[in-house]
């Protein structure tokens, strides 16, 4: 099991971090923030069948797979820590809004596990209420019994580390883009594509097919946000804007695009259709994953998609 545990001094409070949804976006920010504050934390393991099963048990049937998995991770953390970190985001102001799932997740967790007596550590990002990220983290630091200056320092360090990690990622992806192989751009929320259960098998399989997966979510966010206008003018959701904006950034450097969504993702249901209707002259495959999808069916579709791309390129026999 890949569980991160850090030992701290006498203070024994321990935070549980569900390895799902926003974790993949904010992992460095959170982990370095707690590290700097000397607070012990535990991250739930990579998604496994048991976590999916638990999530499905607790989530309302129609919820998206990603949020079901989230509840599975929360459940895994119960009784293993003092507080479970469940942040809430209202929107990113002028950067856009978020799927209502992120507005609701705090209350979904607290209502779903009401009888389990859990304590939640939370922060709220809501520019309208002047709850910006920094203020939210200072409040969280205060709640954890840390002084304002210490929390501020921890936040700034963590923010810097997050930025470094992002730059490193972009750099690594640049390397991959220069490889002389079939490259496929994956347009998928990071919490799906990086999830062991949902996205990882797809990345692994694409590599087995000898292709290079390029992640749309690895890109300069500022550039991507600006570029998204080229494809869609009124797109409201920040995460989707960032993903859609990566298409103009990478399109000329890749051979095909895969739109991968978790059933029945609300934003993706509209955005994928816009992309298919507006992004021409490159093969696009749309994949919808749910907890019942067998891997056999997905592999067949990925294989034939890669075949089509190679046929088009005229090098069907490209070897790994």
């Amino acid at each position, binding site marked *: 099991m890949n569980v991160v545990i850090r030992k701290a001094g006498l203070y024994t409070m321990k935070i549980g971090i569900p390895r799902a949804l926003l974790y993949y976006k904010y992992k460095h920010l959170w982990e370095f923030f707690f590290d700097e504050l000397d607070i012990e934390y535990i991250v739930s393991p990579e998604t496994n069948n048991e976590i999916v099963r638990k999530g499905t048990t607790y989530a*309302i049937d*129609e*919820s*998206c797979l990603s949020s079901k998995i989230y509840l599975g991770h929360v459940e895994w953390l119960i009784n293993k820590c003092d507080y479970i970190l469940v942040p*809430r985001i*209202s929107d990113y102001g002028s950067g856009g*809004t978020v*799927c*209502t*799932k992120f*507005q*609701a*997740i*705090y*209350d*979904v967790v*607290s*209502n*779903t596990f*009401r009888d389990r007596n859990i304590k939640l550590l939370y922060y*709220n990002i809501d520019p309208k209420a002047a709850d910006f990220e920094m203020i939210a983290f200072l409040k969280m630091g205060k709640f954890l019994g840390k002084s304002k200056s210490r929390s501020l320092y921890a936040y700034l360090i963590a923010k810097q580390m997050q930025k470094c990690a992002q730059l490193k990622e972009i750099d690594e992806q640049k390397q991959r883009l220069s490889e002389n192989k079939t490259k496929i751009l994956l347009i998928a929320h990071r919490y799906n594509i990086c999830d062991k259960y949902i996205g990882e098998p797809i990345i692994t399989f694409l590599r087995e097919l000898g292709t290079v997966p390029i992640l749309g979510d690895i890109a300069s966010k500022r550039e991507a946000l600006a570029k998204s206008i080229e494809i*869609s*003018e*009124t*797109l*409201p*959701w920040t995460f989707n804007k960032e993903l859609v904006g990566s298409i103009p950034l990478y399109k000329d450097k890749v051979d095909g695009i895969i739109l991968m969504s978790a*059933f*029945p993702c*609300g*934003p993706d*249901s*509209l*955005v*994928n*259709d*816009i992309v298919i*209707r*507006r992004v021409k002259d490159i093969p696009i495959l749309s994949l*919808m994953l749910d907890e019942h999808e067998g891997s056999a069916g997905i592999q067949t579709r990925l294989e034939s998609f890669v075949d089509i791309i190679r046929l088009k390129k005229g090098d069907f026999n490209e070897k790994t």
Partner: protein
Amino acid sequence: MKKLKASFPHLGSYHAPLEVFFTAGFGVDYIVPPPITKRTLEIGSRYSPDYVCAPFKYHLGNFIETIEAGANTLVQSSGVCRLGYYGELHEQILQDLGYKVHFVNLAKYKAPKPINFYNGFKEIKPDMSLTKIAQIFPVVLKMFEHIDEVEDFIRQNVGFESTIGSFDKVHADFLSDLRMIRKKKELNNTYRNYMKRFKEISVKKPNNPLRVGIIGEYYTIMEPFSNHYIEKELAQMGIIVDRWLNVSNTLLHYPKKEMKKHIEDYVKYPMGATSIPTIDRALDYAKKGYDGIIHVKSFGCTPEIDTIPVLQNISNDYKIPILYFSFDTQTSETGFTTRLEAFYDMIVMRKEAKK
């Protein structure tokens, strides 16, 4: 220049004030959208992405029907959930289908500043007269309010009318008379006259009738076709129906602060779209001892799905049954009536046991 013929997707009984707004305010023709039917849904589903929420499909189908009826300027609103992105995809799909219409997407002007409204309106008709719009706007708002007041009254009484169909008839006359109104005074008179007529309809209400509250997602709760005419079905079972969610309440009388305070034991933050009134009303109906609550939404509506764990807690705490309906484009009529009838039997039995 070609005459402007504008239209907006059909929703419940609100076509009259929209018609007045477009004709008197903008001075354009208004194409009353054909009522939502099976055909609307069929066309809408054919051209929509498969797993998008049902209201998107109804809107698309209805846009195509209004184009067939002669509209050349279509207006789509903005919204706080997926609705906020409907317009751009609707426009793209209609364009891909080869329809040549002017599509005004109000989501482009989303920041709630008067200047943005102005720009949005200007796109509908560039040479519009702001004075005319300013004159008709309060009348239109009042018209929404009156329609909602009338329908509240109907929901309380229609289940007990002595002659079946009496309320429907007066209601239809009322809506058709509203279309001619341009002045506030006329509106007041019409409203007063009709309220009198409604109150004169003979009803036989039992002493302690069954009472059910309806909560849920904006479109599905207001467009009767999309909810299998649930309010009519309940009325025919002899049930008083309460519903807070309507256009005038959400637009003009939305005590968001009070509602958030009221539900603070259950939720800390707004969960998106109509989640606050959904939970607030459920809690209120529960506290007032209603016989049951019915939650309606279209399949996959995220904000309403997220209210369900909260509603389940309210249901457990106050021992009030809640029936959940999730309508998609395939919902079977038999499945719907079986569940509704069983709900009726259950609340009757519960009520008898309480005596």
